[in-house]
């Protein structure tokens, strides 16, 4: 029984560990080496999906810290990624409060709005308060591929949730 509990805890911690790992490591979802324009923001998808489906596996404090770590590793002003992640978290919380049952299509649509607001805030702050120049084309590609990666990640995370975490949606 204790072993089952331990395994459940490990599986429950999976999404959070993945979020921390993506923030802290040089492993990135930037696949420019394979396809020059292909980059997508996996942490935002992770946060949106798990706050929407299983808020118990992803605390807001952890999201805040993961954002700070990401800023340190990437060299952005401190707090800028945290703000962007918290915006996604807020949208996800709102959708969860407003809806009873969601589908992949409805999640995808609401994710699009969350992504636009999060990226808008992120790049506006970066543009206004930092000297770092960023290519708008790359922002466009990143947003586009993040949006179109969502259904694939949704299916993968749903599979993980159904097989390794179990229970009902939030």
């Amino acid at each position, binding site marked *: 029984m204790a072993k089952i509990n331990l395994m459940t805890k490990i599986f429950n911690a999976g999404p959070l560990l993945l979020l921390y*790992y993506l923030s*802290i*490591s*040089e*492993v*990135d979802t*930037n696949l*420019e*080496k394979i396809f*020059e324009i292909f*980059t997508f923001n996996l942490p935002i998808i992770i946060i949106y999906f798990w706050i929407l489906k299983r*808020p*118990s*596996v*992803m*605390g*807001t*404090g952890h999201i*805040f810290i993961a*954002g*700070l*770590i990401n800023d*340190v*590793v*990437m*060299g952005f*002003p*401190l*707090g*800028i990624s*945290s*703000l962007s992640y*918290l915006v996604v*978290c*807020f*949208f996800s*919380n*709102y959708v*969860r*409060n*407003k809806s009873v049952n969601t589908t992949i299509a409805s999640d995808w649509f609401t994710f699009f709005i969350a992504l636009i607001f999060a990226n808008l805030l992120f790049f506006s*702050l970066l543009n206004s*308060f*930092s*000297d*770092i*120049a*960023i*290519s708008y084309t*790359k*922002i466009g*590609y*990143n947003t586009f591929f993040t949006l179109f990666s969502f259904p694939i990640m949704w299916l993968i995370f749903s599979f993980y949730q159904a097989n390794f975490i179990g229970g009902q949606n939030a």
Partner: protein
Amino acid sequence: MSVNRDDFSIAFRSALLQRGGAQKFSILSLFILTIIIFFLDVYGFTVVQKARSIINDVVFRVSYITTSPLRIMPDVSTGIAGHFNLKEENEKLKKVIENYKSLDLNLEYLTNENKNLRKVLDAENIINDKTNMVLAKVLIDRNSPFLKSLIINKGTRSGIKKGMAVTQNNYLIGRIVDANHLSSRVLLLNDLNSRVPVTFDSNSSQAILAGSGIKNPKLEYLPEGYVLEDGINVYASGKDRIFAPGTPIGKTTNDGEVKLYIDPNQLSFVTVILTRQNKEKF
């Protein structure tokens, strides 16, 4: 209608203020905390800068440790493949030695010529003085879609300061943009924020090497009507008083790009040139 508005405000407030379970903090409180941290960092308060420097050092090292398995795996596979190709490698190395022997004959002449040219450029002892160099290991080379930079394991403790040139095998790769106590961030030449004055061809034409965010940087502000040829060596001109004049960078391509001598994605060790050129006195 009013019911809908109430519904909206309840859901909105709940999304901002809700706590419980894993949500130990409300999103609103974290928003406020993040905004405070952001502005403290942006406006560069000394305490925050020092704290950030310490956090950077810790996070960079933790990041280096956590990603070590990913670095070891390719090394192991390369090692096994290398073991089976020893004979082939031996023959290749013999050829390389022969090549070096022939090159050695010209070395003395080139060294003298180089010394004389450096005297002309007033840059003697900038690159060749080994006490002015720091060898550093690359801790993180996160290939971000937005920033092309890497983290090295030497910082202000080793004498590194913001703006210093970074090379590998005497080829320019970038400059220091952020120096912590035990680590530093190197902005690579292909980053969108990188601008380096360069010189090239037999007429010593001048231009600016601008990072484009992709693999190869581009030449901008070329002389009027200049037609760029393929395969011309590009050197730092030193006009910015940051990079030593004559530091090789790469070769031109037909489309106005410069193919760097050093692939920025394949760096393990780099050299930081501690000498910064003095500002010109008029």
